């Protein structure tokens, strides 16, 4: 953090080679070919900074946290709680107590569906969109079936943008208590107009949750500027460890919400008759947390912050533009989604070649992409597709890798047609 060199937006430039050196896995071969990893939207690879911070914690300074009075425990507690400060900074949250650590985005959204959901009354509604990941759909269906609330779905346009008029109309009757919408689609790449979404929601008396799983990776996130009430993300897509995610929520909401999981660390006092809850955020963190992974997430945030989102966003914009141009030259290829603002995720289909065959054949050439419904089945149905192929780009992606992708796609198509 201290060595952070400010980069101005105009001159932000990544030294991709230097960055790639920090990801040992990028030197691996797959089927005797150099690995071309274009699946970062599913999960990003980890830099040495993250791997080493986790290993070093376990080698030199580890013990269970919060309840220990000894040195190892106090130092580990400091490291763990220090990451809460880092995450609060990272999201520009008003306070560190508003940061709750979870396993992943999925658990963060489930926590809200459970604990905020417990405050909802039958007849109230939750509003999601047609392009949600199952993580931001299934928990609300389960809440609907449990609590008798309404679940509404805002449509998207054929380009893959949120249909803002329809969105507004769905809020009109004032029954929507919570809008829960992705900040970036993991299929279409759409970056949603979060500030506008929040303003409209608030005007209609609804709160708003953004699923930031994809978006926090690509640009600077400021929950206050966005006007969010809840925000979630997941460590493993942010070059961090698996097993760690984040829920940010406004203090007053966290304070009102009943706890989610019960157990150690989330209580104030316990008798057999009744228990009282710890203050936020601890009320929502039951049991021994993912200590080492939280520390690893801190290392990831430090690492990303040093590079800076100006440089990252510029790099990814360039890659995405290049990909859209190059893929357009592949015969029979169609890009899925043409949103107004997009991140580094490009879905496509190819006439006469099923996405699964594309993925397997690319893999035989060392190229890792994803194919399927991307945990967004209802979106697939909206697009009238059963699956897409998806290439996604990270901090370490090189333009040349996109060229290899495009060239190989041409050969695959020749093979099939």
């Amino acid at each position: 953090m201290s060595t952070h060199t400010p980069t101005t937006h105009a001159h932000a430039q990544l030294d991709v080679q230097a960055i790639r050196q920090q990801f040992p896995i990028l030197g691996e071969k797959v089927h005797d070919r150099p690995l071309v990893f274009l699946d970062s939207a599913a999960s990003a690879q980890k830099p040495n900074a993250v791997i080493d911070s986790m290993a070093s914690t376990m080698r030199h300074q580890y013990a269970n946290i919060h309840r220990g009075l000894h040195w190892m425990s106090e130092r580990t507690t400091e490291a763990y709680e220090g990451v809460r400060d880092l995450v609060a900074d990272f999201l520009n949250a008003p306070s560190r107590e508003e940061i709750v650590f979870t396993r992943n985005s999925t658990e963060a959204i489930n926590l809200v569906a459970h604990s905020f959901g417990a405050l909802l009354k039958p007849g109230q509604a939750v509003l999601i969109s047609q392009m949600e990941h199952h993580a931001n759909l299934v928990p609300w269906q389960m809440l609907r079936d449990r609590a008798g609330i309404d679940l509404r779905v805002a449509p998207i346009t054929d380009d893959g943008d949120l249909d803002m008029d329809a969105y507004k109309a769905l809020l009109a009757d004032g029954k929507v208590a919570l809008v829960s919408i992705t900040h970036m689609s993991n299929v279409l790449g759409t970056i949603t107009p979060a500030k506008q979404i929040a303003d409209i929601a608030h005007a209609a008396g609804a709160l708003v949750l953004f699923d930031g799983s994809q978006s926090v990776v690509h640009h600077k996130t400021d929950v206050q500027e966005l006007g969010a009430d809840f925000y979630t993300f997941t460590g493993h897509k942010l070059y961090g460890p698996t097993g760690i995610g984040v829920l940010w929520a406004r203090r007053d909401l966290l304070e009102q919400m009943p706890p989610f999981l019960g157990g150690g660390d989330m209580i104030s006092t316990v008798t057999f008759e009744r228990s009282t809850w710890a203050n936020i955020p601890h009320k929502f963190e039951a049991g021994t947390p993912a200590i080492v992974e939280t520390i690893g997430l801190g290392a990831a945030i430090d690492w990303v912050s040093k590079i800076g989102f100006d440089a990252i966003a510029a790099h990814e914009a360039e890659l995405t533009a290049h990909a859209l141009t190059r893929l357009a030259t592949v015969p029979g290829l169609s890009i899925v989604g043409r949103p107004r603002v997009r991140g580094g995720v490009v879905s496509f289909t190819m006439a006469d070649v099923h996405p699964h065959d594309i993925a397997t054949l690319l893999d035989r050439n060392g190229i890792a992409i994803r194919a399927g419904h991307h945990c967004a089945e209802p979106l697939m149905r909206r697009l009238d597709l059963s699956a897409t192929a998806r290439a996604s780009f990270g901090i370490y992606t090189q333009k040349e890798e996109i060229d290899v992708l495009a060239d190989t796609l041409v050969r695959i198509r020749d093979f099939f047609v």
Partner: protein
Amino acid sequence: MNTTTAERDALYDRLIVERARAPLYAGRLSAPDVQGDGRNPLCGDKTHLDIALDGHHIQDIRHNTRGCAICAAAADLMAEHVRGNTVAQALAVSDRFRAMLVGSPSLPVVEAQPAPLGALEVFAPLQSHKARIRCAELPWIALKEAFSHVDG
């Protein structure tokens, strides 16, 4: 795809690609005796089977498949293979086919006449692509489903 790459892709044998593109047993039967369906929600692959029986023999079989090349070719080559078999024979082939895909140790010796897989062996390379095995299995799941209505 140039030769070097094609060689590397033993998985996509010419036969698979051809049958996926131009299946020989696609279509419907006008009066099937039994029908079966397979669906893989993970990728949207679907297959429908129409089967005409003559006693316990599979007299004719047609498939209607929407899916990847592996799935489409597996359906077509399955139809070709089991046509003329008894139901019991076809189910034995099914077991053998599955054993080949998951790379399980040889079947119990009690099996007197191991059903030969013939052309179905083009799918053997799936052993190292576990995630695609279900694509090749889907038609066989549909076949089993169809036969679940037959006793014998």
